[in-house]
């Protein structure tokens, strides 16, 4: 039980996907200009990432490893993820044009959110079982969403700040991400027992 808790804490806080593992940065920078879109993107990613981690675990455990095909991991994982994303995209486009329009070009970019491939690959490397995999995927996704939402709200506030010209826009956003990452280092060690 505590093992599960530590997996969660580790994935959400200590080794936060964005600040610790440095994954998923493109959407992190790209979709965080507004809080609203950040929340939407977080939700979409959470769904995709959790399912992707579970699915890739199953593929690995029951298709690849028994056949000695570990070298196909990258290929098979990414294909499954791409399909999953495109499916999600089509469903969202149909059911909520507004969400689709807000998430704009970033929905297909979930495919290229390297967290979506990176987390499943790490997950395999950590030898988790199915439940742990799902927890790990979900925790990582929550960590990503958390980072994205906090970052979005900070960037919204920064819009009014008198930032020096060369730093306006993405530069100050990077600096902010850096300071956030310093703050997140405070969680170091919380997942180690």
């Amino acid at each position, binding site marked *: 039980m505590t093992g599960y808790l530590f997996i969660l804490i580790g994935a959400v806080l200590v080794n936060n996907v964005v600040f610790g593992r440095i994954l998923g940065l493109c959407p992190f920078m790209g979709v965080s200009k507004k809080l609203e879109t950040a929340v939407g993107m977080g939700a979409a990613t959470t769904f995709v990432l959790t399912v992707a981690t579970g699915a890739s675990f199953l593929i690995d455990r029951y298709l*690849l490893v028994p056949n*000695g095909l570990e070298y*196909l991991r990258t290929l098979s994982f990414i294909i499954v993820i791409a399909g999953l994303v495109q499916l999600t995209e089509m469903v969202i*486009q*149909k059911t909520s044009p507004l969400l689709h*329009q807000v998430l704009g070009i970033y929905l297909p970019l979930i495919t290229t959110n390297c967290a979506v491939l990176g987390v499943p690959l790490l997950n395999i490397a950590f030898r988790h079982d199915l439940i742990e995999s799902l927890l790990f995927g979900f925790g990582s996704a929550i960590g990503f969403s958390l980072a994205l939402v906090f970052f979005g709200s900070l960037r919204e506030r920064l819009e009014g700040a008198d930032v020096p010209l060369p730093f306006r*826009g993405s530069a100050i956003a990077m600096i902010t991400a850096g300071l956030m990452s310093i703050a997140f280092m405070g969680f170091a060690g919380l997942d180690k027992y």
Partner: protein
Amino acid sequence: MFAALLVMAGIAVVLGALLGFASIRFKVKGDPLVDKIDATLPQTQCGQCGFPGCKAYAQAIAKGEAEINQCPPGGEEGIRKLADLLGKEFKPLSAEHGVEKPKQVAIIDENACIGCTLCTQACPVDAIVGAAKQMHTIVAPLCTGCELCVSPCPVDCITMVPVPEAVETWKWKYPVVAIRVQETA
């Protein structure tokens, strides 16, 4: 080798079929985005953006065929709104499409007007009244200031004048901030 091919082919078959099916099942019709973009455009209908009217420009933006910084009447504010709406980065007004001017209205020099109706035909919002060969006048509140009537006039009797301020419509100036000394960078 054979197992590899089998596994990958299997995955591909399932996915391809699924996607093909979904692409048809979930096909979307119409584009609500165009209307939203159109709603943020100033409706001056001046064509400076390079498209025949705001709606056409909105369609072009939605398709990704036009940049968001092509509408001079909308100005920076307009670009900002579009950037917000579309989640794009703000960029300054593109110089080749014109410059932001204060809002104007057209005035016809009624003495010079020959009643040719060319301006009436040019006006995108029917803001000019007057029948053929009669003197024409512009209904100022309807005029969007698009300037389209200016060049067709054969006797150059139409001029654009800035809309005067009235006490009721007067805007406070942006407070001068002493600390914001001109940036040099």
